[in-house]
Protein backbone atom coordinates (compact mmCIF):
# COMPACT_ATOMS: atom_id res chain seq x y z
CA UNK A 1 0.00 0.00 0.00
CA UNK A 2 2.75 2.37 0.94
CA UNK A 3 4.33 1.89 -2.47
CA UNK A 4 1.26 2.96 -4.27
CA UNK A 5 0.82 6.06 -2.25
CA UNK A 6 4.34 7.06 -3.14
CA UNK A 7 3.72 6.40 -6.82
CA UNK A 8 3.68 9.65 -8.74
CA UNK A 9 0.73 8.56 -10.79
CA UNK A 10 -1.18 7.65 -7.63
CA UNK A 11 -4.35 9.54 -7.20
CA UNK A 12 -3.49 10.67 -3.73
CA UNK A 13 -1.14 13.62 -3.75
CA UNK A 14 1.11 13.42 -0.74
CA UNK A 15 1.55 17.16 -0.80
CA UNK A 16 -2.08 17.31 0.30
CA UNK A 17 -0.77 16.38 3.73
CA UNK A 18 -0.75 20.08 4.64
CA UNK A 19 -4.47 20.32 4.23
CA UNK A 20 -4.79 17.82 7.07
CA UNK A 21 -2.04 18.75 9.41
CA UNK A 22 -2.10 22.52 9.05
CA UNK A 23 -4.43 23.13 12.02
CA UNK A 24 -2.42 20.88 14.24
CA UNK A 25 0.86 22.39 13.07
CA UNK A 26 -0.37 25.91 13.72
CA UNK A 27 -1.58 25.00 17.18
CA UNK A 28 1.62 23.11 17.92
CA UNK A 29 3.73 26.06 16.88
CA UNK A 30 1.80 28.56 18.92
CA UNK A 31 1.04 26.60 22.07
CA UNK A 32 3.96 24.18 22.13
CA UNK A 33 6.93 25.12 20.02
CA UNK A 34 6.98 28.74 21.08
CA UNK A 35 6.74 27.98 24.81
CA UNK A 36 9.41 25.31 24.38
CA UNK A 37 11.83 27.66 22.67
CA UNK A 38 11.07 30.25 25.29
CA UNK A 39 11.82 27.79 28.07
CA UNK A 40 15.19 26.99 26.47
CA UNK A 41 15.88 30.70 26.56
CA UNK A 42 14.84 30.80 30.22
CA UNK A 43 17.11 27.87 31.07
CA UNK A 44 20.12 29.99 30.18
CA UNK A 45 19.21 32.55 32.82
CA UNK A 46 19.40 32.55 36.56
CA UNK A 47 16.33 34.29 37.89
CA UNK A 48 15.24 35.47 41.25
CA UNK A 49 11.77 36.88 41.20
CA UNK A 50 11.90 39.64 38.61
CA UNK A 51 15.68 39.75 38.31
CA UNK A 52 17.25 37.74 35.55
CA UNK A 53 20.93 37.23 34.72
CA UNK A 54 22.32 35.42 31.70
CA UNK A 55 24.43 32.52 32.95
CA UNK A 56 24.91 30.43 29.81
CA UNK A 57 25.09 26.81 30.83
CA UNK A 58 25.51 27.70 34.51
CA UNK A 59 22.14 26.21 35.41
CA UNK A 60 23.04 22.96 33.72
CA UNK A 61 26.29 22.75 35.67
CA UNK A 62 24.40 23.48 38.86
CA UNK A 63 21.97 20.72 38.04
CA UNK A 64 24.72 18.11 37.90
CA UNK A 65 25.71 18.97 41.47
CA UNK A 66 22.17 19.19 42.75
CA UNK A 67 21.77 16.18 45.04
CA UNK A 68 18.09 16.85 45.54
CA UNK A 69 17.40 16.72 41.84
CA UNK A 70 19.16 13.38 41.52
CA UNK A 71 17.40 12.09 44.59
CA UNK A 72 14.07 13.13 43.10
CA UNK A 73 14.99 11.36 39.88
CA UNK A 74 15.92 8.25 41.83
CA UNK A 75 12.51 8.38 43.49
CA UNK A 76 10.90 8.57 40.08
CA UNK A 77 12.84 5.49 39.05
CA UNK A 78 11.96 3.63 42.22
CA UNK A 79 8.29 4.26 41.54
CA UNK A 80 8.83 3.25 37.94
CA UNK A 81 10.69 0.03 38.69
CA UNK A 82 8.10 -1.23 41.14
CA UNK A 83 4.87 0.29 39.97
CA UNK A 84 5.04 -0.37 36.23
CA UNK A 85 5.82 -4.12 36.41
CA UNK A 86 3.31 -4.72 39.21
CA UNK A 87 0.67 -2.87 37.29
CA UNK A 88 1.42 -4.59 34.00
CA UNK A 89 1.38 -8.07 35.54
CA UNK A 90 -1.80 -7.43 37.51
CA UNK A 91 -3.46 -5.84 34.50
CA UNK A 92 -2.52 -8.74 32.26
CA UNK A 93 -3.74 -11.26 34.79
CA UNK A 94 -7.05 -9.46 35.20
CA UNK A 95 -7.54 -9.18 31.45
CA UNK A 96 -6.67 -12.82 30.96
CA UNK A 97 -9.08 -13.97 33.66
CA UNK A 98 -11.83 -11.70 32.38
CA UNK A 99 -11.34 -13.22 28.97
CA UNK A 100 -11.84 -16.82 30.08
CA UNK A 101 -15.01 -18.39 28.68
CA UNK A 102 -18.00 -19.02 30.95
CA UNK A 103 -16.87 -16.48 33.52
CA UNK A 104 -19.72 -15.55 35.82
CA UNK A 105 -20.16 -11.86 36.57
CA UNK A 106 -17.84 -10.75 33.80
CA UNK A 107 -19.52 -7.37 33.30
CA UNK A 108 -19.47 -6.67 37.01
CA UNK A 109 -15.78 -7.52 37.37
CA UNK A 110 -14.85 -5.52 34.32
CA UNK A 111 -16.71 -2.45 35.54
CA UNK A 112 -15.40 -2.81 39.06
CA UNK A 113 -11.82 -3.11 37.95
CA UNK A 114 -12.04 -0.20 35.58
CA UNK A 115 -13.86 2.06 38.02
CA UNK A 116 -10.75 3.63 39.65
CA UNK A 117 -9.73 5.40 36.49
CA UNK A 118 -12.85 7.56 36.39
CA UNK A 119 -11.55 9.45 39.43
CA UNK A 120 -9.42 12.50 38.88
CA UNK A 121 -5.83 12.47 40.05
CA UNK A 122 -6.49 15.14 42.64
CA UNK A 123 -9.59 13.35 43.96
CA UNK A 124 -8.07 9.96 44.47
CA UNK A 125 -4.94 11.37 46.04
CA UNK A 126 -7.09 13.24 48.54
CA UNK A 127 -9.06 10.03 49.22
CA UNK A 128 -5.95 7.93 49.70
CA UNK A 129 -4.46 10.46 52.04
CA UNK A 130 -7.49 10.13 54.28
CA UNK A 131 -7.48 6.33 54.08
CA UNK A 132 -3.79 5.88 54.87
CA UNK A 133 -3.72 8.06 57.97
CA UNK A 134 -2.17 6.53 61.07
CA UNK A 135 -5.62 5.98 62.60
CA UNK A 136 -7.26 5.59 59.22
CA UNK A 137 -9.32 2.85 57.70
CA UNK A 138 -6.41 0.93 56.17
CA UNK A 139 -4.63 0.47 59.48
CA UNK A 140 -7.90 -0.33 61.23
CA UNK A 141 -8.61 -3.05 58.69
CA UNK A 142 -5.13 -4.55 58.74
CA UNK A 143 -5.18 -4.70 62.53
CA UNK A 144 -8.66 -6.17 62.62
CA UNK A 145 -7.63 -8.93 60.24
CA UNK A 146 -4.50 -9.41 62.29
CA UNK A 147 -1.97 -8.81 59.53
CA UNK A 148 -0.17 -6.20 61.60
CA UNK A 149 0.00 -5.68 65.34
CA UNK A 150 0.71 -1.96 65.41
CA UNK A 151 -0.51 0.69 63.02
CA UNK A 152 1.83 1.40 60.12
CA UNK A 153 2.83 5.01 59.68
CA UNK A 154 2.08 4.92 55.96
CA UNK A 155 2.60 8.55 55.09
CA UNK A 156 5.53 9.47 57.31
CA UNK A 157 8.01 6.64 57.26
CA UNK A 158 10.48 6.79 54.37
CA UNK A 159 9.79 3.23 53.31
CA UNK A 160 6.02 3.10 53.75
CA UNK A 161 5.46 6.47 52.12
CA UNK A 162 7.01 5.10 48.94
CA UNK A 163 4.87 1.98 49.26
CA UNK A 164 1.76 4.10 49.68
CA UNK A 165 2.49 6.07 46.52
CA UNK A 166 3.05 2.84 44.60
CA UNK A 167 -0.19 1.32 45.95
CA UNK A 168 -2.10 4.44 45.00
CA UNK A 169 -0.66 4.49 41.50
CA UNK A 170 -1.45 0.81 40.99
CA UNK A 171 -4.99 1.33 42.21
CA UNK A 172 -5.63 4.16 39.80
CA UNK A 173 -3.94 2.81 36.69
CA UNK A 174 -4.14 -1.01 36.67
CA UNK A 175 -7.72 -1.07 35.46
CA UNK A 176 -6.95 1.51 32.83
CA UNK A 177 -4.14 -0.58 31.39
CA UNK A 178 -6.25 -3.69 31.70
CA UNK A 179 -8.59 -2.22 29.10
CA UNK A 180 -5.77 -2.15 26.59
CA UNK A 181 -4.90 -5.77 27.33
CA UNK A 182 -8.54 -6.80 27.03
CA UNK A 183 -8.67 -5.08 23.69
CA UNK A 184 -5.46 -6.78 22.66
CA UNK A 185 -6.75 -10.18 23.77
CA UNK A 186 -9.71 -9.87 21.46
CA UNK A 187 -7.27 -9.84 18.58
CA UNK A 188 -5.94 -13.22 19.63
CA UNK A 189 -8.14 -15.75 17.92
CA UNK A 190 -9.82 -18.35 20.04
CA UNK A 191 -8.31 -20.93 17.72
CA UNK A 192 -4.85 -20.18 18.99
CA UNK A 193 -5.96 -20.66 22.57
CA UNK A 194 -7.94 -23.78 21.74
CA UNK A 195 -5.00 -25.23 19.85
CA UNK A 196 -2.87 -24.63 22.91
CA UNK A 197 -5.44 -26.34 25.06
CA UNK A 198 -5.55 -29.37 22.78
CA UNK A 199 -1.77 -29.52 23.06
CA UNK A 200 -2.35 -29.90 26.77
CA UNK A 201 -1.44 -26.42 27.94
CA UNK A 202 -2.86 -25.44 31.32
CA UNK A 203 -3.95 -21.96 32.26
CA UNK A 204 -0.50 -20.78 33.30
CA UNK A 205 1.11 -22.11 30.15
CA UNK A 206 -1.51 -20.51 27.99
CA UNK A 207 -0.90 -17.23 29.79
CA UNK A 208 2.86 -17.24 29.43
CA UNK A 209 3.33 -19.06 26.13
CA UNK A 210 0.44 -17.73 24.09
CA UNK A 211 -1.04 -14.60 25.57
CA UNK A 212 2.06 -12.70 26.61
CA UNK A 213 3.96 -13.01 23.32
CA UNK A 214 0.89 -12.06 21.32
CA UNK A 215 0.26 -9.03 23.49
CA UNK A 216 3.82 -7.79 23.28
CA UNK A 217 3.02 -4.66 21.24
CA UNK A 218 0.30 -3.72 23.73
CA UNK A 219 2.60 -4.30 26.66
CA UNK A 220 5.25 -2.11 25.06
CA UNK A 221 2.67 0.56 24.42
CA UNK A 222 1.37 0.60 27.99
CA UNK A 223 4.88 0.41 29.42
CA UNK A 224 5.97 3.48 27.48
CA UNK A 225 2.90 5.53 28.36
CA UNK A 226 3.20 4.49 32.04
CA UNK A 227 6.88 5.35 32.05
CA UNK A 228 6.14 8.82 30.75
CA UNK A 229 3.38 9.17 33.32
CA UNK A 230 5.54 8.04 36.22
CA UNK A 231 8.39 10.32 35.26
CA UNK A 232 6.02 13.28 35.13
CA UNK A 233 4.38 12.23 38.40
CA UNK A 234 3.15 15.28 40.27
CA UNK A 235 -0.50 15.52 41.38
CA UNK A 236 -0.44 12.33 43.44
CA UNK A 237 2.67 12.95 45.51
CA UNK A 238 1.81 16.58 46.12
CA UNK A 239 -1.58 15.63 47.52
CA UNK A 240 -0.59 12.39 49.25
CA UNK A 241 2.76 12.96 50.92
CA UNK A 242 3.83 16.43 49.81
CA UNK A 243 7.12 14.82 48.78
CA UNK A 244 7.96 13.85 52.34
CA UNK A 245 9.28 12.49 54.56
CA UNK A 246 12.82 13.73 54.00
CA UNK A 247 12.16 14.09 50.27
CA UNK A 248 11.69 10.32 50.07
CA UNK A 249 8.73 10.69 47.73
CA UNK A 250 9.76 13.96 46.10
CA UNK A 251 9.54 13.69 42.32
CA UNK A 252 11.39 15.66 39.69
CA UNK A 253 8.20 17.37 38.55
CA UNK A 254 7.47 18.50 42.09
CA UNK A 255 10.97 19.88 42.46
CA UNK A 256 10.49 21.81 39.23
CA UNK A 257 7.26 23.18 40.63
CA UNK A 258 8.96 24.12 43.92
CA UNK A 259 11.66 26.07 42.11
CA UNK A 260 8.98 27.87 40.14
CA UNK A 261 6.50 28.72 42.83
CA UNK A 262 7.42 27.61 46.35
CA UNK A 263 11.01 28.77 46.83
CA UNK A 264 12.18 32.15 45.65
CA UNK A 265 10.90 31.78 42.14
CA UNK A 266 13.60 30.80 39.63
CA UNK A 267 12.07 29.89 36.31
CA UNK A 268 15.51 29.68 34.75
CA UNK A 269 16.57 26.78 36.91
CA UNK A 270 13.22 25.05 36.76
CA UNK A 271 13.32 25.24 32.95
CA UNK A 272 16.75 23.62 33.11
CA UNK A 273 15.44 20.78 35.24
CA UNK A 274 12.51 20.33 32.85
CA UNK A 275 14.88 19.94 29.95
CA UNK A 276 16.95 17.40 31.79
CA UNK A 277 13.76 15.47 32.43
CA UNK A 278 12.71 15.65 28.77
CA UNK A 279 16.04 14.31 27.62
CA UNK A 280 15.93 11.47 30.13
CA UNK A 281 12.41 10.47 29.12
CA UNK A 282 13.31 10.57 25.44
CA UNK A 283 16.34 8.34 26.02
CA UNK A 284 14.30 5.90 28.09
CA UNK A 285 11.56 5.65 25.48
CA UNK A 286 14.11 5.00 22.77
CA UNK A 287 15.80 2.30 24.85
CA UNK A 288 12.46 0.63 25.56
CA UNK A 289 11.55 0.68 21.88
CA UNK A 290 14.96 -0.68 20.91
CA UNK A 291 14.77 -3.52 23.41
CA UNK A 292 11.30 -4.50 22.36
CA UNK A 293 12.22 -4.41 18.67
CA UNK A 294 15.29 -6.54 19.16
CA UNK A 295 13.56 -9.40 20.83
Amino acid sequence: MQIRSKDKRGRRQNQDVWKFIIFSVVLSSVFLLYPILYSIYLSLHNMQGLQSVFVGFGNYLRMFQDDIFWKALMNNFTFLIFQVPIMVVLGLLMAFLLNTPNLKGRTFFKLALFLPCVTSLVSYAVLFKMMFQMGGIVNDTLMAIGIVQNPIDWLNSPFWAKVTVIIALCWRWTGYNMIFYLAGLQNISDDTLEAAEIDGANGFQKFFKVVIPQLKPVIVFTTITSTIGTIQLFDEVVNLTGGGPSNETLTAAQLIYNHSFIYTSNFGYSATLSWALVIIIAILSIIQLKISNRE
Partner: protein
Amino acid sequence: MKKLTSLLKYTFLIISSFISIFPFYWMIAGATNTANQIAEGKLTFGDQLFVNLQDLFGAYDIPLIMWNSLKISGVTVILSLIITSLAAFGFEKFTTKTSELIYGLILLFMVIPLASLVIPLFKMMAGLQLVNQHLAIILPAINNLFLIFFFRQNFKSFPNEIIDASKIEGASNYEIFFRVVFPMMKSTYAAAAIYAFMNSWNSYLLPLIFLQTENKYTMTLLISSLSSASYVANYGTQMVAIIIATIPTLILFLFMQKGFVKGMTGSLKM
Protein backbone atom coordinates in the same frame (compact mmCIF):
# COMPACT_ATOMS: atom_id res chain seq x y z
CA MET B 1 -7.35 -29.18 39.81
CA LYS B 2 -9.82 -27.41 37.65
CA LYS B 3 -11.93 -26.50 40.63
CA LEU B 4 -8.92 -25.14 42.45
CA THR B 5 -7.95 -22.96 39.49
CA SER B 6 -11.49 -21.74 39.26
CA LEU B 7 -11.53 -20.95 42.96
CA LEU B 8 -8.26 -19.05 42.70
CA LYS B 9 -9.57 -17.17 39.71
CA TYR B 10 -12.70 -15.99 41.42
CA THR B 11 -10.86 -15.20 44.65
CA PHE B 12 -8.42 -13.04 42.78
CA LEU B 13 -11.14 -11.22 40.87
CA ILE B 14 -13.27 -10.70 43.93
CA ILE B 15 -10.42 -9.33 46.01
CA SER B 16 -9.27 -7.06 43.19
CA SER B 17 -12.78 -5.80 42.63
CA PHE B 18 -13.22 -5.20 46.32
CA ILE B 19 -10.03 -3.13 46.47
CA SER B 20 -11.11 -1.22 43.38
CA ILE B 21 -14.56 -0.45 44.70
CA PHE B 22 -13.86 0.08 48.37
CA PRO B 23 -12.62 3.69 48.14
CA PHE B 24 -15.82 4.53 46.27
CA TYR B 25 -17.93 3.04 49.02
CA TRP B 26 -15.88 4.84 51.59
CA MET B 27 -16.26 8.12 49.72
CA ILE B 28 -20.03 7.73 49.55
CA ALA B 29 -20.25 6.77 53.21
CA GLY B 30 -17.95 9.67 54.00
CA ALA B 31 -20.30 12.10 52.33
CA THR B 32 -22.83 11.24 55.03
CA ASN B 33 -20.48 11.74 57.97
CA THR B 34 -18.74 14.62 59.71
CA ALA B 35 -15.10 15.50 59.14
CA ASN B 36 -14.06 14.01 62.47
CA GLN B 37 -15.93 10.78 61.86
CA ILE B 38 -14.20 10.44 58.50
CA ALA B 39 -10.81 11.13 60.06
CA GLU B 40 -11.50 8.42 62.62
CA GLY B 41 -12.26 5.97 59.81
CA LYS B 42 -16.00 5.53 60.38
CA LEU B 43 -17.27 3.02 57.84
CA THR B 44 -21.01 3.18 58.18
CA PHE B 45 -23.46 5.67 56.79
CA GLY B 46 -24.29 8.68 58.91
CA ASP B 47 -26.89 11.40 58.82
CA GLN B 48 -24.73 14.31 57.72
CA LEU B 49 -25.35 14.08 53.98
CA PHE B 50 -27.80 16.94 53.98
CA VAL B 51 -25.53 19.11 56.10
CA ASN B 52 -22.55 18.42 53.84
CA LEU B 53 -24.59 19.12 50.73
CA GLN B 54 -25.83 22.33 52.26
CA ASP B 55 -22.31 23.39 53.23
CA LEU B 56 -21.03 22.78 49.74
CA PHE B 57 -23.92 24.26 47.78
CA GLY B 58 -24.21 27.14 50.20
CA ALA B 59 -20.58 28.14 49.85
CA TYR B 60 -20.14 27.55 46.12
CA ASP B 61 -22.20 27.92 43.01
CA ILE B 62 -21.90 24.22 42.17
CA PRO B 63 -24.23 24.23 39.12
CA LEU B 64 -22.18 27.01 37.57
CA ILE B 65 -18.88 25.29 38.33
CA MET B 66 -20.23 22.03 36.90
CA TRP B 67 -21.37 23.88 33.81
CA ASN B 68 -17.92 25.45 33.44
CA SER B 69 -16.29 22.05 33.60
CA LEU B 70 -18.77 20.52 31.17
CA LYS B 71 -18.44 23.38 28.74
CA ILE B 72 -14.65 23.37 28.76
CA SER B 73 -14.49 19.61 28.39
CA GLY B 74 -17.18 19.48 25.72
CA VAL B 75 -15.58 22.14 23.55
CA THR B 76 -12.12 20.67 24.04
CA VAL B 77 -13.28 17.18 23.10
CA ILE B 78 -15.04 18.24 19.91
CA LEU B 79 -12.28 20.49 18.67
CA SER B 80 -9.47 18.17 19.56
CA LEU B 81 -11.15 15.16 17.99
CA ILE B 82 -11.54 17.02 14.69
CA ILE B 83 -8.10 18.54 14.64
CA THR B 84 -6.03 15.63 15.88
CA SER B 85 -7.78 13.04 13.74
CA LEU B 86 -7.38 15.22 10.65
CA ALA B 87 -3.70 15.58 11.40
CA ALA B 88 -3.27 11.88 12.12
CA PHE B 89 -4.99 11.02 8.87
CA GLY B 90 -2.65 13.30 6.99
CA PHE B 91 0.41 11.92 8.72
CA GLU B 92 -0.62 8.34 7.98
CA LYS B 93 -2.05 8.51 4.51
CA PHE B 94 -0.24 11.41 2.88
CA THR B 95 3.23 10.83 4.22
CA THR B 96 6.06 13.07 3.09
CA LYS B 97 9.54 13.47 4.47
CA THR B 98 8.63 16.77 6.10
CA SER B 99 5.46 15.38 7.62
CA GLU B 100 7.39 12.47 9.13
CA LEU B 101 9.84 14.91 10.62
CA ILE B 102 7.02 16.94 12.13
CA TYR B 103 5.43 13.77 13.46
CA GLY B 104 8.72 12.74 15.07
CA LEU B 105 8.90 16.12 16.78
CA ILE B 106 5.35 15.75 18.01
CA LEU B 107 6.18 12.40 19.61
CA LEU B 108 9.13 14.00 21.35
CA PHE B 109 7.04 16.94 22.57
CA MET B 110 4.68 14.48 24.22
CA VAL B 111 7.10 14.01 27.11
CA ILE B 112 7.56 17.66 28.05
CA PRO B 113 6.14 18.43 31.51
CA LEU B 114 3.42 21.02 31.35
CA ALA B 115 4.88 22.86 34.34
CA SER B 116 7.83 24.00 32.25
CA LEU B 117 5.58 25.70 29.68
CA VAL B 118 3.42 27.58 32.10
CA ILE B 119 5.17 30.93 32.11
CA PRO B 120 5.42 31.37 28.33
CA LEU B 121 1.80 30.27 28.01
CA PHE B 122 0.73 32.72 30.65
CA LYS B 123 2.49 35.59 28.87
CA MET B 124 0.87 34.61 25.61
CA MET B 125 -2.63 34.35 27.02
CA ALA B 126 -2.19 37.68 28.73
CA GLY B 127 -1.26 39.20 25.38
CA LEU B 128 -4.42 37.72 23.88
CA GLN B 129 -6.48 39.08 26.80
CA LEU B 130 -7.46 35.57 27.73
CA VAL B 131 -6.46 35.40 31.39
CA ASN B 132 -9.44 34.25 33.43
CA GLN B 133 -11.16 33.08 30.24
CA HIS B 134 -12.01 29.47 29.59
CA LEU B 135 -10.49 29.79 26.15
CA ALA B 136 -7.07 30.00 27.77
CA ILE B 137 -7.48 26.43 28.99
CA ILE B 138 -9.17 25.14 25.87
CA LEU B 139 -6.71 26.41 23.28
CA PRO B 140 -3.54 24.70 24.55
CA ALA B 141 -5.47 21.47 25.17
CA ILE B 142 -6.98 21.10 21.70
CA ASN B 143 -3.90 19.79 19.98
CA ASN B 144 -3.60 16.70 22.17
CA LEU B 145 -0.46 14.94 21.03
CA PHE B 146 -1.41 11.57 22.41
CA LEU B 147 -4.59 11.66 20.34
CA ILE B 148 -2.62 12.31 17.16
CA PHE B 149 -0.53 9.25 17.96
CA PHE B 150 -3.64 7.27 18.87
CA PHE B 151 -5.56 8.16 15.71
CA ARG B 152 -2.58 7.45 13.50
CA GLN B 153 -2.24 3.97 14.96
CA ASN B 154 -5.90 3.39 14.17
CA PHE B 155 -5.75 4.79 10.65
CA LYS B 156 -3.01 2.32 9.79
CA SER B 157 -5.67 -0.31 9.27
CA PHE B 158 -7.89 1.93 7.17
CA PRO B 159 -7.76 0.59 3.59
CA ASN B 160 -6.12 2.92 1.11
CA GLU B 161 -8.31 1.55 -1.66
CA ILE B 162 -11.35 3.24 -0.22
CA ILE B 163 -9.60 6.59 -0.22
CA ASP B 164 -8.39 6.10 -3.75
CA ALA B 165 -11.79 4.99 -4.95
CA SER B 166 -13.42 8.07 -3.46
CA LYS B 167 -10.79 10.22 -5.15
CA ILE B 168 -11.71 8.77 -8.50
CA GLU B 169 -15.31 9.63 -7.86
CA GLY B 170 -14.16 13.20 -7.48
CA ALA B 171 -14.48 13.67 -3.74
CA SER B 172 -12.28 16.32 -2.19
CA ASN B 173 -9.85 15.47 0.59
CA TYR B 174 -12.10 16.87 3.29
CA GLU B 175 -15.15 15.16 1.87
CA ILE B 176 -13.37 11.85 1.98
CA PHE B 177 -12.40 12.45 5.53
CA PHE B 178 -15.75 13.55 6.88
CA ARG B 179 -18.06 11.42 4.70
CA VAL B 180 -16.02 8.22 4.38
CA VAL B 181 -13.38 7.91 7.06
CA PHE B 182 -15.23 9.38 10.00
CA PRO B 183 -18.34 7.15 9.77
CA MET B 184 -16.18 4.05 9.46
CA MET B 185 -14.09 4.79 12.51
CA LYS B 186 -16.80 5.55 15.04
CA SER B 187 -15.49 3.32 17.80
CA THR B 188 -12.06 4.89 17.49
CA TYR B 189 -13.67 8.27 17.95
CA ALA B 190 -15.62 7.00 20.92
CA ALA B 191 -12.45 5.84 22.62
CA ALA B 192 -10.69 9.08 21.79
CA ALA B 193 -13.65 11.06 23.09
CA ILE B 194 -13.54 9.29 26.44
CA TYR B 195 -9.83 9.81 26.70
CA ALA B 196 -10.05 13.48 25.73
CA PHE B 197 -12.96 14.13 28.07
CA MET B 198 -11.26 12.59 31.08
CA ASN B 199 -8.09 14.44 30.29
CA SER B 200 -9.85 17.75 30.10
CA TRP B 201 -12.16 17.10 33.03
CA ASN B 202 -9.25 16.23 35.29
CA SER B 203 -6.85 18.88 34.10
CA TYR B 204 -5.56 20.82 37.02
CA LEU B 205 -2.48 22.90 36.32
CA LEU B 206 -3.83 25.08 33.51
CA PRO B 207 -7.10 25.99 35.25
CA LEU B 208 -5.14 26.67 38.41
CA ILE B 209 -2.97 29.19 36.65
CA PHE B 210 -5.43 30.84 34.31
CA LEU B 211 -8.68 30.98 36.23
CA GLN B 212 -8.77 33.64 38.88
CA THR B 213 -12.37 34.14 39.87
CA GLU B 214 -14.67 31.61 41.43
CA ASN B 215 -17.31 31.98 38.74
CA LYS B 216 -14.78 30.57 36.26
CA TYR B 217 -13.66 27.64 38.40
CA THR B 218 -13.77 24.00 37.33
CA MET B 219 -14.70 21.07 39.57
CA THR B 220 -11.14 19.79 39.78
CA LEU B 221 -9.95 23.21 40.84
CA LEU B 222 -12.70 23.41 43.43
CA ILE B 223 -11.72 20.05 44.95
CA SER B 224 -8.10 21.04 45.29
CA SER B 225 -9.03 24.38 46.80
CA LEU B 226 -11.43 22.67 49.22
CA SER B 227 -8.61 20.46 50.42
CA SER B 228 -6.09 23.22 50.88
CA ALA B 229 -7.69 26.61 51.40
CA SER B 230 -8.64 26.18 55.04
CA TYR B 231 -6.63 24.89 57.95
CA VAL B 232 -9.60 22.94 59.19
CA ALA B 233 -10.45 21.01 56.06
CA ASN B 234 -14.00 19.76 55.92
CA TYR B 235 -13.72 16.18 54.72
CA GLY B 236 -17.48 15.74 54.43
CA THR B 237 -17.97 18.50 51.88
CA GLN B 238 -14.83 17.38 50.09
CA MET B 239 -16.33 13.92 49.70
CA VAL B 240 -19.54 15.36 48.32
CA ALA B 241 -17.58 17.49 45.86
CA ILE B 242 -15.48 14.53 44.74
CA ILE B 243 -18.60 12.45 44.17
CA ILE B 244 -20.24 15.18 42.13
CA ALA B 245 -17.08 15.65 40.10
CA THR B 246 -16.83 11.92 39.40
CA ILE B 247 -20.40 11.47 38.17
CA PRO B 248 -19.91 12.77 34.60
CA THR B 249 -16.83 10.65 33.91
CA LEU B 250 -18.57 7.67 35.45
CA ILE B 251 -21.67 8.09 33.30
CA LEU B 252 -19.59 8.65 30.20
CA PHE B 253 -17.63 5.53 30.90
CA LEU B 254 -20.65 3.35 31.68
CA PHE B 255 -22.34 4.31 28.44
CA MET B 256 -19.34 4.20 26.23
CA GLN B 257 -17.14 1.51 27.68
CA LYS B 258 -17.94 -1.01 24.93
CA GLY B 259 -16.90 1.51 22.33
CA PHE B 260 -13.86 2.36 24.40
CA VAL B 261 -12.56 -1.19 24.46
CA LYS B 262 -13.31 -1.64 20.79
CA GLY B 263 -11.72 1.68 19.87
CA MET B 264 -8.63 1.01 21.89
CA THR B 265 -8.22 -2.31 20.07
CA GLY B 266 -7.48 -0.47 16.87
CA SER B 267 -4.62 1.48 18.35
CA LEU B 268 -2.75 -1.64 19.30
CA LYS B 269 -1.83 -2.93 15.88
CA MET B 270 1.64 -1.56 15.91
